[in-house]
Structure formats: structure tokens, C-alpha cells
């Protein structure tokens, strides 16, 4: 397992080209092309602003203004997370031709999925930054240094889960359908459109065992709440857990590797 893990480094060029291909292909043929990566999150932010200032103005305490910005801090990374998982569950089947007909390192496919979605996440960040400046939120530069760490933890966690899901979906196609609903449940079970403080006290314990809570909370602390960053212990613990998830996911993937060419 570790020897094949070491090989991953050799596929850098391949992964890089495939991520670029994915991004290029995604918007090929649409008029706005790459701009959709900016427009999509901007439109989303606009919709949430409308809903939570005009339709449901009293859904949150006044201290949480601007609420749309708060949600946006969570929704942007959540979109990266959930589309990574959804797409990776299908990635081996979609890339079946490569696995069956070419000598191709299968683990590249889920990695590419997660990375391509990460690039979309990055493209959404300027929109987020623009709104942070627009609302004149105080940004602590020291806090901002934590952002790469948060992104890294999410990357490792997502990739580990993507390994799991992509390998298991080859055997159980049902996972694909199940996963969509599971992710919707997970979305609401994570403090994204509400904050941890807004949740009832007896829910806190449940929220704490949800890894995404700490990830989202970290984003929110850095980008929305006033400093200083107070979530580093949770975040680092989650980082360690993510590495375990990554290794476990890769182990399962490696074990099932031989079945892909036959089952896809």
C-alpha cells in the first residue's frame, strides 16, 4: 500500500493535466466559459442575501449580520466538499474506458475530481473576498494565515472519503443515489446556515462529533467572526483524523483496485 502511495508523487504531471482538462471541458461550449466559476457563487450569494434579508429577516440574531456573508463562508467550502464526493462516487465508472483499456493508475481519478472542485472553490474566493471588503468586516491577517491549513485539512479529508466512495461505488452502484440524500442531511446537520450558538444546547454534542462542523466553524471564524482564531485545537485534531481517513480510504481503494477493471 505504501509503495503505491509513494507512486502517487510520480503521477503529478498526469494529475495536473487531467485537472486542467476537467476545468477546460466543463465550460467548453458555454458563452461565459470560465466566468461561470465566478458567477455561480456570486448568484448564490445574491439569492441567499435576498432570502435572509427580505423573506426571512428574523431567522437570525442581529449580531449575525450580514447573515448572507456568514452562510456564504460555509456554503462555498461545503460545495467543494459535497461535489467532490458526489462526482468521485461516479468517477471510476465514468472513466471505465481508461481503467479497462489502458494501463492507468485508477487512484488518479478521485484525486482529480477533488482537485478540480478545489479549483472551483478557489475561483469563488475572490467573490467572497469582495463581499468581505464590501461589508467592511475586520480581517485579522494572523487569522488569515490559518486559511491554508483549513483548506489542507479539507483536501485530505475529502480525498480520503473520495477514495472510499469511488472504490465502493464500483461494487454498489446504489451508493450514488444514497449519497445525494446523505449529503443533504449532512448539510443541515452542519452549522452552515446557522451558527453553533444558534443551535439548541442539547444539539451541541452532536454537532461536535460531526467533522464538518469544525471545518466550517474554522472558515467562519477566519472569514466572518471577529478574531482571534479560537478553533485551532479542534482543527488540528481534525487534521490528524483526516490523515487517518485518507490512509484508510486509500487502503480500501488499493485492496479493491484489481476489481475495477472487471467490475466497472
Amino acid at each position, binding site marked *: 500500500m505504501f509503495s503505491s502511495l509513494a507512486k502517487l508523487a510520480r503521477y503529478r*504531471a498526469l494529475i495536473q493535466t487531467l485537472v486542467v482538462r476537467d476545468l477546460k*471541458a466543463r465550460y*467548453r461550449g458555454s458563452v461565459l466559459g470560465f466566468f461561470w466559476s465566478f458567477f455561480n457563487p456570486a448568484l448564490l450569494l445574491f439569492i441567499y442575501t435576498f432570502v435572509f434579508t427580505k423573506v426571512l429577516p428574523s431567522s437570525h440574531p442581529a449580531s449575525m449580520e450580514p447573515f448572507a456573508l456568514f452562510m456564504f463562508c460555509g456554503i462555498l467550502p461545503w460545495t467543494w466538499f459535497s461535489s467532490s464526493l458526489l462526482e468521485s462516487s461516479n468517477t471510476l465508472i465514468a472513466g471505465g474506458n*481508461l481503467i*479497462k*483499456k*489502458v494501463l492507468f493508475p485508477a487512484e488518479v481519478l478521485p484525486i482529480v475530481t477533488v482537485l478540480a472542485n478545489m479549483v472551483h472553490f478557489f475561483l469563488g474566493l475572490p467573490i467572497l473576498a469582495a463581499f468581505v471588503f464590501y461589508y467592511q468586516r475586520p480581517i485579522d491577517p494572523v487569522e488569515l494565515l490559518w486559511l491554508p491549513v483549513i483548506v489542507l485539512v479539507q483536501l485530505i479529508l475529502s480525498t480520503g472519503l473520495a477514495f472510499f466512495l469511488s472504490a465502493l461505488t464500483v461494487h454498489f452502484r446504489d451508493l450514488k443515489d444514497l449519497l445525494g440524500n446523505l449529503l443533504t442531511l449532512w448539510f443541515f446537520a452542519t452549522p452552515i446556515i446557522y451558527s453553533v450558538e444558534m443551535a439548541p444546547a442539547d444539539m451541541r454534542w452532536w454537532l461536535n462529533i460531526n467533522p464538518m462542523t469544525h471545518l466550517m466553524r474554522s472558515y467562519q471564524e477566519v472569514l466572518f467572526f471577529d478574531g482571534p482564531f479560537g478553533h485551532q485545537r479542534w482543527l488540528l485534531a481534525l487534521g490528524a483524523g483526516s490523515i487517518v481517513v485518507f490512509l484508510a480510504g486509500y487502503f480500501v481503494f488499493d485492496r479493491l483496485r484489481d476489481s475495477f477493471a472487471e467490475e466497472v
Partner: protein
Amino acid sequence: MTPAIDVINVSKIYRRYARRRQFATLKSALLDGSLLGDLKPDETFQALRNVSFSVPKGCTYGVIGSNGSGKSTLLKCVAGITRPTEGEVKVDGRISALIELGAGFHPEISGRENIFINGIMLGLSKKEVQRRFDEIVEFAEMQDFIDAPVKTYSSGMYMRLGFAVAIHVDPEVLLVDEVLAVGDQGFTHKCLDKFSEFRRRNKSILLVTHSLDLVEKFCDEAHWLDKGISKGEGDPKKVVAAYVMNVEDSEQHSLAKAEAARLAASAKNVTGAPPVAEERDPGSGVRDPEEAPLNPVDDAETTRDGFKATEGRWGTREIEITKVSISGPDGESGHVFQSGDDIKVHMTMTAKEPITDFVFGLGLFNADGVCIYGTNTNLEEFQPSQIVGECSVTFEMDSLDLIEGTYRLDLAAHKADGYPYDYHRLLYTFRIKSRVRDVGIYRPAHRWDFGGGITFKAE
């Protein structure tokens, strides 16, 4: 010197598709890394059984066998795409597998970008692709379209581009699975030239193909697989000959089986008159064009549907054709002959009462339903006087110079005015094999004569 490819006792077992045992395979794959786990023998399928061979460096090695004989599985094991269940495959040097051309092309992006991506997938670095780029484009003959998205390519263009990229990876070992049918004649020649160049540079090629000519002309050694078992290895001419013999044998069996089925089916239809669609002058298969206006239905149908339209049996059975066999030069009855063989058609007849008005006829048709030849004893001016009891009729052709193909026979006994005793329409089938790929319906006895400064290479 180590061989380029060494296949040692390779067996490959696949799981038969059964949904409910999915968990068993997943569990055993996770627990002990084996895909088959505790599957029972009837839930598995053995695609390869103890296959061994080795390909020395610089050798072109052909693998032949009928469909489902495990050729492609073998190639996938050598390529490393699947792992053999038992045994071992050792390959020395970089492999490029031409198994499916253009696998991994993304339809939305341009040929140019796809060349880079595909090259990198096949193990080149970006710089290496850059260096070979022009050569690839030129080889694929794609200069004008290289910036168009791949989805706009014709299938030939797609394949050519895939082939060009794969072959320019410059492997030590090239695996080729039946991909030479990708282009027009010119492109095929170019591919073969490329293979020859590989050979000169002491690289090895493993070629899986149905083209026996290619194996004979091109390979240094050949290997014949049948149902996953290795049936022979060595000199290509010998291996191909053994394979062809075997194919003829099995064709023999299947033709005999089909014929028995047809006879059984037609025996049920014992009516005095022919079925309506088949109402025609049963002139022993002689299809005089002047008859056509009388029987437009039948003629149209025969030419359109070939054999299918009208096979069957009818007649009063006052004279019954009880047994028919076709035999070749060895005197044994069979269904597969060589072009130019001396062929006899034997019929056994029974007439319960003495009959004085009778004609025997025979018609020979090709697979398009075209009558190649038809005759009867009346046309050849035999004057019938009497038939009674069990008798035999043999129609003997000294040299049946037909081109390769499948042929069928009409056999009949009837009155001079066409009243049918026993009419067997297209019930008998045989195949003609030929080493020469000539075309047409008839091969006149011929030879070539050359004068002046014309010379040919000796074979």
C-alpha cells in the same frame, strides 16, 4: 538475454455475473485481497488456463484463436490492466498497448490538447509529447483538424489519432489488439511500416489478430489459443495451418447441425403442393429469364432475401429423395471443401410404384441467392423410361472451381411438366475454401503468361 515478455503459467478466472454474490467478492477482496474468495466453481469462468510463452527481444509474436478464446484477456494481463489469477507475467521495458484507440480522449476539447493528455497518460512527459507532436499529427494525417474538438472527428480520424499517439510513445514492447482495421489501405500500410520499423530497432510486438495473413507474413512466432488453452506455438505457417484445419472441422459440425435442423423442419411440412410463396416452375433450379414474368413474386423474393426466402421441401413423394450427401475428393461426405475439388452429390431415391415420367434436377446457389448453375436430366436430353425401388443418383463435378463462400443446393425429382415428386429447395449447404481471395461467382480455369521484361519475386 532476458525475454521482452515472459508469461509463466498464467490462468485468469473471472466471476460470472451474479448480483447476489456481490457481497462475497467484495468481502473477500477487502479481507484477503482476492477477488474470487469463496466462489463456487460454477460461479466463475476460466478465461485462461496455464498459458506460458516468452517473447524474445525483437520478436513479433502473433496470438490467434476464435472469438472468446482468451486472446484479449491475455493481452490485458501482459499489459498489466488486469492481474492474472495464477501465474506471472514479466515484461522488460516500457509497454504501450494498442487495445482501444483513443481511450481517454475527451470529446469536448481539441485534438491538440488531447494529444498532450493522452501522451501523458501513456507515460510521456510534457516535453516528450511536445517533441513528437508534429510527427504524431503528420502520422495521423490530421493537420487541418487538430484544433477542432475531438467530438467533431469521424471515427476513422479518432482512431488514427489514437493510434498515432500510442505508437509514438516509443515503447520497448508494443501490444496490439486487432486495431489495424482503423483506416483506409494507405493508413494500414503506414501502420505496418511502423511495425516493421519497430522490429528493425529490436523492439518486441505482441499482436492479437484474426487476420491470419498478417500473422503468416509478419510474425516470427505464433501462438494459438482455444477456450483459454494453449493449442500450439511456433512457426506461424504451421500454427495457422493447424488453426485453419480446426476451424474447418468446427464449421463442418455446425453446417451439419444446421442442415439436420432444416431437414427436420421441412419434413413436418409434408404437403403435396409447395407453399404459396414458393410457387414456381420447379425446373430443377433452372431459372430461365423468360420464366420470370410468370413467377414475379418468387423471383423478386429469391433475389432479395437470398436463402431465407424459400427453403423447404414439397412434392407428392411418389419418388422420394431419402438421403443426400456431398463428398469431396477423399470420398467422405462433408460440408467444407477446397476450391477446385472434385465433388460428388449423391442422392438415394425410392419409387414405390414404377414411374415412367421423371426428371432429376439440381441447382447451385451462392449466398446472394444467385443461381450459379442449374440443370436437369430433361435439359440434358435423357429419355426416362422407368424408375422403381431404391436407386441412387450421383451428380459428379470433376473440378468445382468456385470462389470462397457458402453455397446451397436445390435437388428435385419431378415430371417433365414440372409436377413435383420431391422437391428439396436450398436444403443442402456446403462451404468452399480458397487460398486465393478472388471475387465473382465463377472461376474460369486460367493461368497468367508474362512476356518481355516482367519479373516477379519468388515467394
